[in-house]
């Protein structure tokens, strides 16, 4: 039975999507179906974890499907602790976003259906074990993203959306070329971890890896291509769409982790340092811009970008000197906390902005009027900054320490960026709590509801337990 579970888990969001579309026009029907689907998904993930053998390397519960036997194309899906942890993080993030959706969007079937469709694609991407299925889901993600941002992103200038689409589409085309080249030399579908070991002529290898790297980097807000995402996220006001957009870099990061699972291809080795330098420049660049910006949301964007780049940096630099699976698990533990924490902060912040807009009051200093929200907000900011309240704390320590092992200068640059980021977020938190910054006091500002608070506290408890053991839920 367990071998069918991963496939069922992969298709569960698609099933949920159909159910959402077929749900009756009722205020909460679509939302309830979505929540039910997400909760079922989380339970399935827990069940899979209980059956997972952590000592075993590589994908487990592999399911192969002969698609085109004449062309030697067998699609392969499977899971490992790394992909399951990421999926768990994504499920919790989306569940939190759906639970916290504004009232007027509860009944929006289209929003929730696209959300489930997106989740299906992400699940497929995380479960993909071969290059064709990976490419299929990697490309398919663009459609729900385009629809969600276009329909619900409140974009006033559509040019941002078109640029976003064109940029990502170019990435997909480049990846397609790389996949076709791999197909040509391998004469069939190939498992993801084997690509780096494949023998190809030098020029072809360069073209393949250049294409793969460009396609994956197109998803990560790396300088100077960060613009597509920074221009979008500064406008989006819908928490669900915002969170989904911020999950896009994860797909790029995940791609690097999978393609370079065993080793980095020799043909890209000379360019690794160049990539690392661009990553570092982007980290510092984004942090400094984050300091200059006054909105917490932009600082949060800077925070997310820096962390994604930190994980990317660790992957590209350390996979040659460390055991890849150990490094990946450290990154996965960190991401498992990172994803829900950032999502919750996004939601809380957007809710506050909305409240300010509705009540026509100042945003700065608003937390002084919301004691319950302030407590939970501070807790999650502390968690996000890698304080000892979640697995992020010591995984950060291990990752940074390993970066120092690779290069002292890189370690210093990373620490510089992280320190500035911490200071910038803490200062903004102070500003948001400082009553004096609240120019036009309005005492009718609504605080967070008890139910919502309880939910967020519950998620906080789950993440807090990960501090003691990141896989505490595996029995």
């Amino acid at each position, binding site marked *: 039975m367990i071998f069918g579970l991963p496939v069922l888990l992969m298709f569960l969001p698609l099933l949920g999507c159909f159910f959402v579309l077929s749900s009756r026009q009722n205020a909460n029907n679509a939302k309830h179906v979505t929540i039910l689907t997400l909760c079922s998904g989380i339970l399935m993930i827990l069940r899979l974890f209980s059956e997972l053998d952590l000592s075993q390397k590589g994908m487990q519960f592999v399911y192969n499907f002969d698609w085109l036997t004449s062309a030697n194309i067998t699609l392969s899906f499977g899971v490992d602790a790394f992909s399951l942890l990421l999926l768990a993080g994504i499920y919790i993030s989306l569940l939190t976003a759906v639970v916290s959706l504004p009232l007027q969007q509860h009944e929006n079937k289209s929003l929730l259906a696209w959300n489930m469709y997106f989740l299906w694609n992400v699940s497929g991407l995380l479960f993909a074990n071969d290059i064709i299925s990976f490419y299929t889901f990697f490309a398919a993600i663009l459609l729900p993203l385009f629809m969600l941002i276009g329909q619900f992103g409140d974009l006033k200038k559509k040019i941002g959306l078109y640029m976003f689409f064109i940029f990502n589409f170019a990435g997909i085309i480049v990846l397609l070329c790389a996949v076709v080249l791999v197909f040509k030399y391998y004469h069939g579908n190939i498992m993801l971890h084997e690509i780096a070991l494949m023998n190809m002529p030098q020029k072809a290898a360069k073209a393949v890896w250049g294409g793969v790297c460009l396609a994956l980097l197109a998803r990560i807000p790396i300088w100077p291509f960060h613009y597509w995402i920074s221009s979008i996220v500064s406008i989006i006001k819908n928490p669900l769409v915002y969170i989904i957009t911020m999950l896009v870099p994860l797909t790029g990061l995940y791609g690097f982790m999978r393609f370079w699972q065993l080793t980095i291809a020799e043909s890209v080795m000379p360019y690794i340092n160049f990539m690392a330098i661009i990553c570092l420049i982007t980290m510092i660049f984004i942090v400094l811009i984050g300091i*200059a910006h006054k909105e917490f949301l932009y600082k949060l964007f800077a925070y997310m970008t820096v962390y994604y780049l930190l994980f990317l940096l660790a992957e590209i630099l350390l996979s040659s000197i460390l055991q890849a699976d150990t490094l990946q698990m450290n990154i996965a533990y960190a991401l498992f906390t990172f994803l829900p924490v950032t999502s919750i902060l996004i939601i809380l912040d957007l809710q506050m902005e909305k409240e300010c807009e509705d009540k026509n009051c100042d945003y700065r200093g608003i937390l002084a009027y919301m004691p319950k929200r302030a407590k939970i907000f501070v807790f999650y900011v502390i968690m996000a900054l890698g304080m000892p309240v979640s697995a992020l704390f010591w995984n950060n*320590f291990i990752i940074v320490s390993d970066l120092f092992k690779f290069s002292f200068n890189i370690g210093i640059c990373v620490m510089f960026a992280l320190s500035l980021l911490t200071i910038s977020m803490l200062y903004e938190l102070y500003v948001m709590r400082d009553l004096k910054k609240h120019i036009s006091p309005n005492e009718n500002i609504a605080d967070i509801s008890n139910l919502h608070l309880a939910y967020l506290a519950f998620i906080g408890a789950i993440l807090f337990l990960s501090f003691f053991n990141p896989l505490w839920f595996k029995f």
Partner: protein
Amino acid sequence: MIAYITLTLFVIALLGSINIGIKKDRLFSFLMFILLCGIFAFFGLDFAAGKDSVLAFVWNSSPGGDIKIDIISNAYNYNLILPFFTITMFAVWQNIILRFEERRSAYNAALVFNLTALIVMITGNNFVQLLFALFVIDILALFLIKDMEAYRRYILLNIFADMFIFTVMAIINCKVDSLDIREILRYKQIGHHLDFIAISGLSAVFMKIGLFAFHIGGVGLQNIRLHRLQNVWFLSSPISGLIMLMKFHVLWNSSVYFAPYLHSICILSMFGGFLGSMCTKHFKLKIIYWQMMFGAILVELLCFRGFEWSKEFSLLLLQMYVLAEALYLIYYYTGRCNLIAEIIKRHSNNETALNMAFVLLFLAFIAITGTLTALYNRGNRYYIWTFAVLYTISLTVSIRQMIFLPRSNIITAKAPSVKMHWILFFVLGSLSAFVLQPKQLLAPAVLGFTVAFLFLCRYMPAAKQIAFYGRYKNRDYIGMIYKFLFIKPLRLCGKFLWILVDRLLVEKIIIGVSLTLAQKAIVGFRRAHQSTTMGQLMIVFILVGLICVAFSYGGYK
């Protein structure tokens, strides 16, 4: 055994943090204090028994080694924990008696949590354990300070310090491949970036203790309640800084910059603290500067004793605490006024209590001088003399102002009559009797300083100093330096990158030019498709060009 004591303290703190009604709060906090007394008695008995033991368990594993929780019980750790345990007990008890807080049990719980974290830090031998305790102490400091405006700089500076320590530990871990702090000696042999590690580590410690150039965080605390200020100084981040110094000095002092940096900052702190305390009329600010001076001499004395904590240091810390408590009582019985000039006029209603507080202050001063005499040696003599002289002058000037200053041209306002807490004086008196070392009291230096103290208290020309206060604008020069050296450039840099690179280069030039080019290309092709001669010629040229390229590079011969 310290491990069981730590665990019990943690449970008590957890229970104390339960939100119960205000009515039951006093009883609950009192029960908490009784339990603390019981644990303290066990602690004392264990200390006296002198048995060494270790409780170690693997918390988590990583390629860099196991993350262990070590709680090591030995005489050294008992000795180091003792003053903090005593101070925590006293702070809890004082909170019950003087009703500082609305929710006493919650505040007491924060204090006990803080003590638990300190014990974990003192007894631990693992980087992650140390970092964990360090961060927890900083987070708890927020609860102890409980003032948004005040902890802005304090917490930012402490976070910076934590980041420095994090970096130092990460560098050590990456070289020795171990999370065990005892392995730092191996790093010393490897010897990479020793100077960087020493300077970063020391800077972090200075930030935590609040020594000169890093004292803006401490100065920012001048508007919080005085008992919170004292609890933060004697139990929170400054102490964690000291512990870090004691744990890492073996590595840091191998750098040539260690000693000059440490001594120069300590000397500057003594003089800076002296000037600051002399120039300010703000009572709490004076206390902050005195604490800065005290921090400096403590670091210096530790340095000359090889950073080994001993009984004398425990005594010195407790004596300093008694002195701080005496100052607190003066503040409390004069109606909690912040300006030193106001204190004098508020004597009348609580004369007995104030006189007793001054006696307590005097006793604490003698005790401190005695301990300094015991710690005196050839190496540290200049530092001790400098500190003793500056401290005596600064303290006596303030006492002189508070007791003997002419009462003209000062705001006349009587302090409200406050209940005399005999039990408080009794306990503080007992504590000061405990920390007084009779052997040292007859030393010539102690006698000399006692006479000087009494003489200066009576005859110091303090009245002129009040006039000096008027000219002193209490400007935050160090804060301004920070602002102009670090904060403004960083913000400017961020704005420059945002406007010039993000907006101008990427948005306007790269994206704008690409869009314009795309539009032009579309217009061009549209025109080419129209049935004009030029359009058709253009298409023909393009196609011929493509054929030529394909023929040349397409691989055909």
